[in-house]
């Protein structure tokens, strides 16, 4: 089977569209709704999925995702449940790329090989381990290779030029550009910071054909536009989505649909928004 990330980004490229990758926490707010939320993403036509495993100590995450993690763990939603849910999602859509976002201890506690094997079985395409820098990726590389799973890595605004090579040496799927200093969450973007990202994106693009998607703090069409302007190939959005889910009113799925459509519209070039200061 072909690499779904590769295929999907090629399609998008042909259509002159950018990727919209929503992040959702597996099992939040509960198993059933989590499934429905993810199904809605696919229905709304998002480009790929980024599904998170809840972890007790998510240091890269802000309050919104932390809170979702605690609740998910408290509900006894287990790693096994999470894999089962992914398998169910894969049944909805054979083609959509599925990435999972985990902390390293989750992988370790399952056994590295077992984790990647299981992931593959459930239809996962990529694994991003939030606290595993490329320097330590040899710990998981053999298992990833063996089971044909891409390792997705983070790039940060502070990543020094000499580290880009190390990252690219191990990276697959796409590059996850942390679009600002700080943890995940909803904060107003800073135009100055965004500008300085442009050169990083350029430098990276000169060295790789891997697409670059920006995440952290992307929560509305303006943020999306800002990211597209600096030249990325797609965006990842998470905290805002969880916020909508948390409010948990009847029209949650419709709200999500609307949210995705707004983002997708910008990414399809149907709307171009001015850069906010």
């Amino acid at each position, binding site marked *: 089977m072909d690499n779904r990330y590769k295929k999907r980004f090629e399609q998008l490229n042909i259509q002159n569209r950018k990727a919209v990758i929503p992040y959702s926490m597996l099992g939040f707010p509960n198993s059933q709704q989590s499934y429905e939320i993810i199904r809605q993403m696919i229905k709304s036509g998002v480009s790929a999925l980024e599904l998170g495993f809840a*972890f*007790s100590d998510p240091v890269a995450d802000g309050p919104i995702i932390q809170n979702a993690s605690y609740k998910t763990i408290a509900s006894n939603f287990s*790693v096994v449940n999470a894999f089962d849910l992914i398998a169910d999602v894969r049944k909805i859509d054979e083609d959509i790329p599925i990435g999972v976002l985990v902390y390293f*201890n989750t992988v370790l506690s*399952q056994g590295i090989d077992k984790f990647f094997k299981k992931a593959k079985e459930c239809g996962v395409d990529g694994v991003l381990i939030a606290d595993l820098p490329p320097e330590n990726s040899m710990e998981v590389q053999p298992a990833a290779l063996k089971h044909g799973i891409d390792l997705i890595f983070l*790039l*940060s605004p502070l*990543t020094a030029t000499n580290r880009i090579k190390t990252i690219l040496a191990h990276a697959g799927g796409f590059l996850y550009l942390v679009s600002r200093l700080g943890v995940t969450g909803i904060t107003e973007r800073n135009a100055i910071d965004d500008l300085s990202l442009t050169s990083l994106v350029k430098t990276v693009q000169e060295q790789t054909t891997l697409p670059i998607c920006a995440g952290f703090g992307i929560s509305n069409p303006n943020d999306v536009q800002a990211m597209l302007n600096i030249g990325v190939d797609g965006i990842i959005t998470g905290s805002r989505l969880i916020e909508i889910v948390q409010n948990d009113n009847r029209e949650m799925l419709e709200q999500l649909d609307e949210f995705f459509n707004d983002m997708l519209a910008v990414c399809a070039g149907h709307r171009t928004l001015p850069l906010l200061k």
Partner: protein
Amino acid sequence: MMNTGRYGQYGGIYVPETLMPALVQLEREFLKFKTDEENNFYYRELLANYAGRPTPIYYAANLSKNWGNSIYLKREDLVHGGAHKTNNAIGQALLAKVMGKTRIIAETGAGQHGVACAMAGALFGLKTEIYMGEIDILRQNMNVQRMELMGAKVHAVKTGSRTLKDAINEALRDWIKNVEHTHYLLGTAAGPHPFPSIVKFFQQVIGEEARAQVLLKNKILPDYVIACVGGGSNAIGMFSAFLDDRQVKLVGVEAGGEGLDSSKHGAVLNKGTVGCLHGMKSKVLQNEDGQIQEAHSISAGLDYPSVGPEHVYLQEIGRVEYTAITDKEAVQTYYELAQSEGIIPALESSHALAYAKHLCEQNKNISVLINLSGRGDKDLAEVEKYGQSL
């Protein structure tokens, strides 16, 4: 990086990408610092005249008599601020200054590291913010007052178990956001490389002094050297000088809480399994899914579900034995030292003392060197509360 910071398979760096550059810089600057004569001279000078080093070792005649063996106490309780934490805080604050950082942040459990950072922050003119679990704020309130008095800002951490573990999480999150101008002044020999090496470097003075002092006094090394283990900084600082003295038995004492068979303890080396938390591979208290479990100890400084990686290695190679002492035993020994020697030990240190007592019950003619890592004024209210709950 020059070094992967491994102790056997433990240690290493497991952090989000954003922190990598800071850790690279930190390693580079630390390696420079280690051999920089001027900075080292300044550091030693501060240890002497600001922090009050060397601290003595005290032959506890009454305790020795009561316990039937020779007991020596390394008096880190006399360090400025009231615990060994100051050794590391001054060192790292100086390092931060050298790196051109303008702000330090820190986690704290017992509050001793927070106090030490507030002191160092005031001394070096660094903006200082401290993360402290809400529960720890309650049980170590005096230390919160001290930090604030010295101009530090204390953030109450309300996530997770609301103790040390979560304070570290919050400090890491702050660091991720403010990494350019902020140094994360980690308070124990844990966390991502190069922190365990840095903290060990700044705490080695404990063991160096103690070994020389005990030799000067007795011409012979002690049979046992004992230290409590929270994150492991006072223990590694003490043990490091004795690692090559194979005849000296080293014992680290963890928080036994309500007992190792209960779910309420902090005995990571005794009951934990290999995992990854706070940027390092080490042992952790966790469930099958790798969710970190809450630790428990009456002493906030030992209430941590992981431990510095070198200790896991030292346990694995059999050089150090790790054991545990319950809340109850620790409190009893807290009283015992206060009343027999007029020295109030930190509840953390009381764990080491209590294990020494056990050892003395089973042995004759041994000499035991215990690291009295801090003074126990901070624990008065907690001990009283514990007494009332019995």
